[in-house]
C-alpha cells in the first residue's frame, strides 16, 4: 500500500471539510429560501432532494471506501489495521448505542405526541359546535324561507307597482338586503335593495333556478369573503290566470354579525382541525423518516469520522512500525514525519533521534571496522611477505593464524589450517610432528616465553629453526601463543661454507708451501745419508723417508683438493645443450662401466643454458660417480638422469635430477651432505659434493639432496637458463669476486 504524505492527507481533509460545508450550506440556503416563500418550495424541492441525495451518496461512497480499505487491510494483516478496526468498533459502539436509544425514544415521543394532538374530545367538541351553529342558522334559514314562500304567494296577484311596493315593504320589515322578483330567463321584474342606486340585484345561481322551476323553495347559506353570511331564499310564485309566466322571488338576508362571527370561528377551527388530522399520519411518517435519516446520517458520519480519526491516530503508529521494520533491516536512514506536537509527536521525534544516533554509531562502527580491516589486510600482507614463519595458536594448540612462510618452513600447507589442531595437521608430516612435539614439551614444562634453536629432521634433510614463543596478550589467561621461527639452515650452511672456505684457503696457503721443502728435505736426506749408512740404518732411513714422502704426497693431494675447493677460477660462460652434455657423460660412464644402467629422461624444451660447460660436466661427473659408487653391491642398480625446464617467475630454470636405487643418504648426514669431509664412503676426501655445491652456487643455482620414498637417493640441481637472470647472481658473484680479490 502506497502511503500518503501528511501534506496530501491534510489536503484531503480540508477538501472533505469544504465539500461537506458546501453541501450543508447549500441545503440550508435552499431550506431557508423555501421556508421564507412557500411558492419556492415546489421549485426548490428537486434541488433540495438532489443536494440531500448527493450528501447521502457521497457519504455512503466515502464510508464504503473506507470500510473496504479497512477490511482489506485487516485481512492482509497490515500493521495498524487491527488497532484501527478496534478503535472504529469502540467509537461505533459509543456513538451508535446512544443514537439508537435516542432514536427509539424519539420515535415513541413522536407517535404519542402527535396522537395527543387529535384527541376524541376535541373532535367531538368541534362537531358539537358545528352542529350548534348549523342549528342556529337553520332556524333563521327556515324562518326566512317561510317568509319568502309567503311573500311569493302574496305576490301572485297584483300589478307591477303594487308588487314593487310589497317587495319594499317586505324588505324593510325583514331587514333583507335585497328582494327581487325574476321572470323567465332571469329577467328582473321588480326589486328592492338597500342601496338601489349602486348595484342591480345579484343574479340567482343556476341551482337556485333549477330548483324553483321545480316549484321547490330554495334556501342556502352563502359565506362571504369578508366573513359575513348571507341567507339566500327563493320561491316560485303561484301561477294565476292573469300571468302564465314562471316567476320567482329571491331574497337575500344577512345573518347577524355575532352569529356569523361565531359560526365563522367554528368553521375556521373545523377547517384547521381537519387539516391537522389529515396531516397526522404524513406528519408522523415524515417525522419518523426525517428522524431516521438524521440518525442514519449521524451514524454514517460518526462511523466515517471514527474511521478517519482512527486512521489519523494510527498513522503515526503505522509509521513507527514501518520505521522499526526498516531499522530492523538495517535502514537507519528512515525518518518519520512528525504528526503533531503531542505525545505521539514526541514519540516519533524520539524515534527519529534514535535512528539518527544509530546511523551515526553505525557509520563510526563501519569506519572502525574498515580501519581494522585495513590493518588486518596490511598485517596479512606483511605476514605473507615475511620470510619468517609466524604461527598463532591457543593453549589447546589450535591454529588461529599462520602465514605462508610458516607452512613453507614446516613443509605443509597451513592456508586452511585455521581452527584446526596443530597435532592433527602434523600427522603424516615428520618435520611438523617434531615441531609440535617440541612445542608440547615446552608448554608442558610451563614455559610460555622462550627462544631456542630447534633441529627438525625430515626426508629432505635436517632443518634448523630459530624459534621464539611469546604468549599473546588478552583478557583471559588462555589467549594463546605466537611462535615466530626462521629457517636458519641455509645461514648455518653458509657459515659452515665460509668456515670451510677459510680452512681450505689457509690449508692451501699455509700447509702446501712447507710440504715441498719437507718432501725435498726428506729425499735429500735419503740421498746424502743412504749411501754411508749401514744396511739396517739405511733400511730404517729408507722406510722413514719413504713414509715422509708418501705422507707429504698424501697431504699434497689433500691440500690440492682443498685448493680446488677454495679456488674461484674465472668461469667461461657459454651457451650449450645440457641434454647433449648429459648424453655425453652418460655414454662415457656406460662405456667405462658396462654394469651401469643409466636411463635418461630429457626435456626437449630445454634447448640450451648459459653456463661454464666444463664445470657443469664436473658436476655431472661427481654426481654420477657418487651415484655409481653408492650402487656398489645393489642387485639391479639403476641410475636415472633427468632434465626439466621450469619457469620461476620471469626466469627459466634447468632442473637436473640424478636418482639411484641405492641405500640413499644416511639420515644423520642428510642435512650436511654438502659439507666438506662429510661422507659415508671409506675412501675419498669428502669434498666431492661440497665442490659440486660450490660450483652450482657460483652459477647462481642451488642443490638439494634427499631420499626417495621408494628408496634411493636423489640429488636435484637447479641452474638458471640465462646468465643474466640468475637469482643468486648477486650473492654468488659477490662471493666469487671476494674470493678472487683475496687470492690476488
Amino acid at each position, binding site marked *: 500500500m502506497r502511503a500518503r504524505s501528511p501534506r496530501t492527507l491534510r489536503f484531503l481533509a480540508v477538501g472533505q471539510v469544504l465539500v461537506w460545508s458546501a453541501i450543508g450550506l447549500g441545503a440550508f440556503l435552499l431550506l431557508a429560501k423555501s*421556508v421564507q416563500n412557500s411558492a419556492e418550495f*415546489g421549485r426548490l424541492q428537486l434541488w433540495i432532494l438532489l443536494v440531500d441525495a448527493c450528501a447521502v451518496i457521497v457519504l455512503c461512497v466515502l464510508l464504503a471506501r473506507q470500510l473496504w480499505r479497512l477490511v482489506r487491510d485487516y485481512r492482509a494483516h497490515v500493521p495498524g489495521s487491527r488497532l484501527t478496526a478496534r478503535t472504529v468498533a469502540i467509537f461505533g459502539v459509543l456513538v451508535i448505542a446512544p443514537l439508537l436509544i435516542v432514536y427509539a425514544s424519539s420515535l415513541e415521543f413522536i407517535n404519542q405526541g402527535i396522537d395527543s394532538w387529535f384527541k376524541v374530545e376535541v373532535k367531538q367538541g368541534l362537531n358539537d359546535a358545528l352542529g350548534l351553529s348549523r342549528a342556529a342558522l337553520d332556524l333563521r334559514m327556515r324562518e326566512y324561507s317561510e317568509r319568502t314562500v309567503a311573500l311569493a304567494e302574496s305576490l301572485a296577484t297584483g300589478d307591477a307597482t303594487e308588487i314593487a311596493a310589497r317587495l319594499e315593504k317586505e324588505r324593510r320589515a325583514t331587514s333583507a338586503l335585497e328582494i327581487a322578483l325574476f321572470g323567465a330567463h332571469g329577467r328582473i321584474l321588480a326589486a328592492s335593495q338597500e342601496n338601489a342606486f349602486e348595484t342591480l340585484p345579484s343574479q340567482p345561481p343556476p341551482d337556485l333556478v333549477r330548483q324553483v322551476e321545480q316549484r321547490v323553495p330554495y334556501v*342556502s*347559506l352563502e*359565506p362571504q369573503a369578508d366573513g359575513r353570511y348571507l341567507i339566500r331564499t327563493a320561491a316560485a310564485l303561484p301561477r294565476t290566470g292573469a300571468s302564465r309566466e314562471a316567476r320567482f322571488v329571491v331574497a337575500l338576508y344577512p345573518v347577524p354579525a355575532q352569529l356569523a362571527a361565531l359560526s365563522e370561528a367554528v368553521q375556521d377551527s373545523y377547517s384547521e382541525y381537519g387539516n391537522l388530522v*389529515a*396531516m397526522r399520519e404524513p406528519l408522523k411518517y*415524515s417525522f419518523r423518516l426525517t428522524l431516521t435519516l438524521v440518525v442514519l446520517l449521524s451514524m454514517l458520519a460518526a462511523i466515517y469520522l471514527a474511521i478517519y480519526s482512527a486512521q489519523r491516530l494510527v498513522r503515526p503508529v503505522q509509521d513507527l512500525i514501518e520505521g522499526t521494520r526498516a531499522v530492523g533491516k538495517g535502514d537507519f536512514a528512515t525518518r518519520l514525519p512528525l504528526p503533531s506536537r503531542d505525545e505521539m509527536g514526541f514519540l516519533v521525534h524520539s524515534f527519529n533521534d534514535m535512528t539518527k544516533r544509530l546511523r551515526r554509531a553505525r557509520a563510526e562502527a563501519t569506519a572502525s571496522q574498515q580501519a581494522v580491516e585495513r590493518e588486518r589486510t596490511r598485517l596479512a600482507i606483511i605476514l605473507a611477505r615475511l620470510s619468517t614463519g609466524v604461527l598463532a595458536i591457543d593453549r589447546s594448540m589450535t591454529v588461529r593464524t599462520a602465514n605462508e612462510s610458516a607452512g613453507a618452513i614446516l613443509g605443509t600447507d597451513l592456508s586452511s589450517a585455521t581452527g584446526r589442531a596443530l597435532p592433527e595437521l602434523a600427522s603424516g608430516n615428520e618435520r611438523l610432528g617434531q615441531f609440535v612435539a617440541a612445542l608440547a614439551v615446552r608448554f608442558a614444562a610451563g614455559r610460555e616465553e622462550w627462544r631456542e634453536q630447534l633441529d627438525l629432521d625430515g626426508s629432505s634433510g635436517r632443518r634448523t629453526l630459530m624459534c621464539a614463543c611469546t604468549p599473546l596478550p588478552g583478557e583471559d589467561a588462555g589467549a594463546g601463543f605466537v611462535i615466530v621461527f626462521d629457517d636458519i639452515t641455509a645461514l648455518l650452511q653458509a657459515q659452515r661454507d665460509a668456515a670451510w672456505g677459510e680452512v681450505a684457503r689457509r690449508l692451501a696457503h699455509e700447509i702446501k708451501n712447507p710440504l715441498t721443502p719437507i718432501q725435498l728435505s726428506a729425499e735429500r736426506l735419503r740421498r746424502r745419508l743412504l749411501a754411508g749408512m749401514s744396511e739396517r740404518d739405511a733400511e730404517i732411513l729408507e722406510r722413514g723417508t719413504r713414509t715422509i714422502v708418501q705422507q707429504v704426497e698424501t697431504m699434497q693431494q689433500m691440500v690440492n683438493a682443498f685448493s680446488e675447493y677454495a679456488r674461484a677460477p674465472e668461469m667461461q660462460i657459454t651457451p650449450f645443450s645440457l641434454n647433449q652434455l648429459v648424453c655425453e657423460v652418460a655414454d662415457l660412464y656406460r662405456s667405462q662401466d658396462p654394469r651401469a644402467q643409466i636411463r635418461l629422461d630429457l626435456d626437449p624444451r630445454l634447448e640450451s643454458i648459459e653456463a661454464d660447460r666444463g664445470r657443469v660436466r664436473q658436476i655431472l661427473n661427481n654426481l654420477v660417480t657418487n651415484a655409481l659408487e653408492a650402487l656398489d653391491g645393489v642387485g639391479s642398480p639403476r641410475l636415472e638422469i633427468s632434465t626439466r625446464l621450469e619457469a620461476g617467475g620471469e626466469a627459466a630454470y634447468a632442473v637436473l635430477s640424478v636418482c639411484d636405487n641405492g641405500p640413499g643418504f644416511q639420515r644423520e648426514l642428510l642435512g650436511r651432505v654438502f659439507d666438506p669431509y662429510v661422507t659415508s664412503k671409506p675412501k675419498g676426501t669428502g669434498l666431492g659434493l661440497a665442490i659440486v655445491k660450490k660450483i652450482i652456487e657460483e652459477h647462481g643455482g642451488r642443490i638439494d639432496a634427499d631420499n626417495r620414498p621408494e628408496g634411493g637417493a636423489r640429488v636435484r640441481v637447479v641452474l638458471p637458463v640465462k646468465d643474466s637472470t640468475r637469482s643468486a647472481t648477486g650473492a654468488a658473484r659477490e662471493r666469487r669476486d671476494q674470493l678472487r680479490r683475496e687470492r690476488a
Partner: protein
Amino acid sequence: MLRGDPTRIGVTRARLLAILCAMGCVLWSLALANALEGVLEVRSAYVNVDKGVFLLYARIEYPQSPAISDALRDGITLTFDLDARVERDRHLWFNAGIVDLTLRRELNYHAVSDRYVVRDTKSGDQTSFATLDEALGYLGHVDAWPILVEPQLDGGNYNISVRAGVRRGHLPAAMRAILFWTDDWNRVSEWYTWSLPV
C-alpha cells in the same frame, strides 16, 4: 475455522439483496402513491388578443375522487394553480422567459353552510357552490385571463405553456418542509404548449 461454501454464500447474499431491493421498491412506490388520483391535464387552451391584451382561455380537467371529497369534507383546503409561461425562442441557448404567471385559487368545504367555496387568493373574491362538481367545473374554466400585453413582444417566435397543479394548501411553510418526503397531495400536469400568434 470452518468456512461455508463460497458459491452458496454468494447465492444467499444475492437472494438477500434481491429481497431488500424489492422491499425498497415497494416502500418507495407506497411513498410515491399520490392521493390526488385521476386525470389532471389541460384539455385545451388558447389566447385571444383584445386591444393589445392577450387573454388566456383554458379548459382543465381536475381529478375527482372520493378521497378528494372526503378530504375536503374533513377540512382540507386544496390549492389549484394554473401556471402560464411565455418564452421567446433563442438559438443555441435557453429560451428567454417573458412571462411567468400563476393563477392561484383555493377550494375548501364550508362545513357550516355545507357548500364548496372557491376563493381567488390574489383578489380575495370567493364563490360558493352546492356541489363539488360545480366547484371543479368552475375551476376548470378559465376565461379571459390577461397574461401578456403587446409591448412585451419585440419580434421572434414565442411559445406559451400552460400547466395545472393541485396541492394541499393552507400548510405552513415549515410544515411543508417537514412533509417534504411524504406529501402525496401535490400533482402537476404536463405542460400544454403552443406557439403564440404574433
